[in-house]
């Protein structure tokens, strides 16, 4: 079938079918001796919703501010749509930003806030008002046009900020923790709204966030940052299931991490001796490593199965005692103690309304996982 593929799912970062829209090459930002951003190179494509994910102080906001023009890179080059941004002031860039605090002008009405950028481009009032009205319709704020920011709820303010930054149809929209100030429920609703708006306008978004769930939901691709560097770039499932480092595995979701040494290295499997487990882990695919090399093995709690009866397999099967159970409603998190004393966490989906096996505190159980369930990490 030859149905046309929408921009966001055409994945130019795989096909290489089009040149990158934003090129960040070898950008470094130093504040004194401190490297806020350290030699970052990143290509982002047209129509993407790219998330920069990282903890506080990892440099994600600094990178965003360099794109907006509020900070100047110490070294390196930023190109947007083929144009070098060096020496361009924020008011000369084809980008707009949605601020974490929203930065709504408190002395202007919603309408004036949204129109501000259009007037700065010398647009006539009639035309500007038309665009503002259209934008307010999109974010469902038409009835609030003549209110002042402090008369709005948090969610409404967030939408004004979005409207104001989108009304100029920037080539690139930068969003600094766009949902950070909203409560959980509103945040979840707004996430989908944001994606809808982004897709309908086709504007490229770069979102900075520290919330991994938000990044997973929103992003076409995620760039995980740590200590000023981009650690891994990939689509959400890739980042979650195939982390390239202990940092990423640990930062995204929760994980059981084991340190081990390669005891068998064959083309179609390897085996890791893990002292913590008092045994070995069988990895059902080849890994480029050498015998006796130190490696790490990361396996997510939901990939671990618990049972009273011994599973019908020989590899990756261990005995454990239930130490603690946290009932979360949809799932239960079991904390298991291995004979070596090592703790392991495993989640179990609560598929029925009462647990048939009724595993409880102090029970001796078997734990196991598939030989492709975990990720082997070299760093």
């Amino acid at each position, binding site marked *: 079938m030859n149905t046309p593929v929408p921009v966001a799912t055409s994945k130019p970062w795989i096909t290489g079918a089009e040149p990158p829209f934003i090129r960040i090459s070898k950008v470094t930002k130093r504040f004194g001796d401190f490297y806020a951003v350290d030699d970052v190179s990143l290509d982002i494509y047209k129509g993407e919703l790219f998330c920069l994910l990282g903890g506080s102080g990892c440099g994600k906001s600094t990178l965003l501010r360099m794109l907006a023009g509020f900070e100047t890179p110490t070294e390196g080059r930023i190109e947007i749509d083929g144009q070098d941004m060096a020496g361009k002031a924020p*008011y000369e860039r084809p980008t707009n930003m949605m601020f974490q605090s929203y930065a709504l002008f408190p002395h202007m009405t919603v309408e004036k806030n949204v129109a501000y950028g259009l007037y700065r481009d010398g647009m006539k009032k009639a035309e500007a008002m038309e665009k503002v009205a259209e934008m307010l319709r999109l974010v469902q704020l038409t009835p609030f046009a003549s209110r002042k920011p402090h008369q709005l709820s948090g969610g409404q303010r967030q939408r004004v900020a979005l409207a104001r930054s989108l009304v100029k149809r920037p080539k690139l929209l930068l969003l600094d923790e766009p949902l950070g100030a909203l409560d959980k429920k509103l945040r979840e609703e707004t996430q989908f709204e944001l994606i809808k708006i982004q897709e309908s306008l086709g504007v490229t978004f770069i979102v900075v966030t520290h919330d991994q769930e938000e990044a997973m939901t929103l992003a076409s691709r995620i760039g995980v940052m740590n200590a000023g560097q981009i650690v891994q770039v990939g689509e959400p499932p890739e980042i979650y299931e195939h982390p390239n480092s202990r940092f990423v595995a640990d930062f995204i979701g929760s994980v059981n991490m084991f340190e081990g040494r390669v005891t068998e290295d064959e083309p179609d499997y390897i085996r890791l001796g893990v002292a913590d487990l008092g045994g070995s882990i069988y990895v059902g695919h080849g890994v480029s490593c050498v015998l006796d090399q130190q490696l790490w093995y990361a396996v997510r709690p939901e990939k671990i199965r618990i049972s009273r009866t011994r599973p019908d397999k020989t590899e990756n099967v261990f005995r454990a005692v239930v130490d603690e159970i946290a009932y979360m409603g949809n799932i239960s998190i079991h904390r298991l103690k291995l004979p070596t004393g090592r703790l392991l966490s495993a989640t179990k989906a609560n598929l029925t309304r009462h647990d048939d096996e009724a595993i409880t505190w102090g029970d001796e159980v078997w734990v196991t996982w598939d030989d492709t369930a975990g990720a082997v990490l070299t760093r």
Partner: protein
Amino acid sequence: MRRNVWLPAFVILGFVFLYAPILSLIVFSFNESKLVTVWGGFSTKWYGELLRNPQILSAAWISLKVAVTSATLATVLGTLAAFVLTRFGPFKGRALLTGMSAAPLVMPDVITGLSLLLLFVAMEQLIGWPAGRGMTTIIIAHTTFCMAYVTVVAQSRFASLDESLEEAAMDLGARPARVFFDVTVPVIAPALVAGWLLSFTLSLDDLVVASFVTGPGASTLPMVIFSKVRLGVSPDINALATIIIAIVAVGVGIATWQMRRGARKNGG
């Protein structure tokens, strides 16, 4: 919990201490007797006397002109200084500007007055300006020390101002000067009004600096009051004080009413 009665009692005494002298000024301004402390019956004759006193009237007019001009100049200059100090990052002479804009706050009036007078005398000898001393020199002197107060007020407002407001304006295409007048000034306007009023009051109140830098023919109201008060009691000064207190009370009343109305209009 047992309510503490000592604290409110103390606070009431404190306010009595603050207001008793002011009230006595008002009461005795309607006193028939020339002895300001002995009640001789109700009269408004001192008000009439005051309004027929050309010396006081012209001094009041001069003081008003000086206060308005120097408060305005001080607000402009002080806001600029505060803006530079909070927003410009490092530049040559930053430490100097920081010091110079804070020092007048702790400078005794007598020193400010003396040093400015000597400057004006030296300048007149060197470049012939200011030719003689009078209103211009008082305005310059008042602007200089009021500016420091405006800088302090504006600086704390700038510091608490969310910088992303200005960045947002710039991001939406406004150049720095536009940002300043479209966003910064309107947002900090209440602080600027407060700074202006503070300067206006300080200028209107100043006796010492003005006495040093003034010249013939330019006597401000405090200078006239001081010379009368030094000689002893004068009931017409009570009348003047009452008028000033009334103006201030009305002004504060209007300001409060406006603020309440503004708060209600803005829904909070």
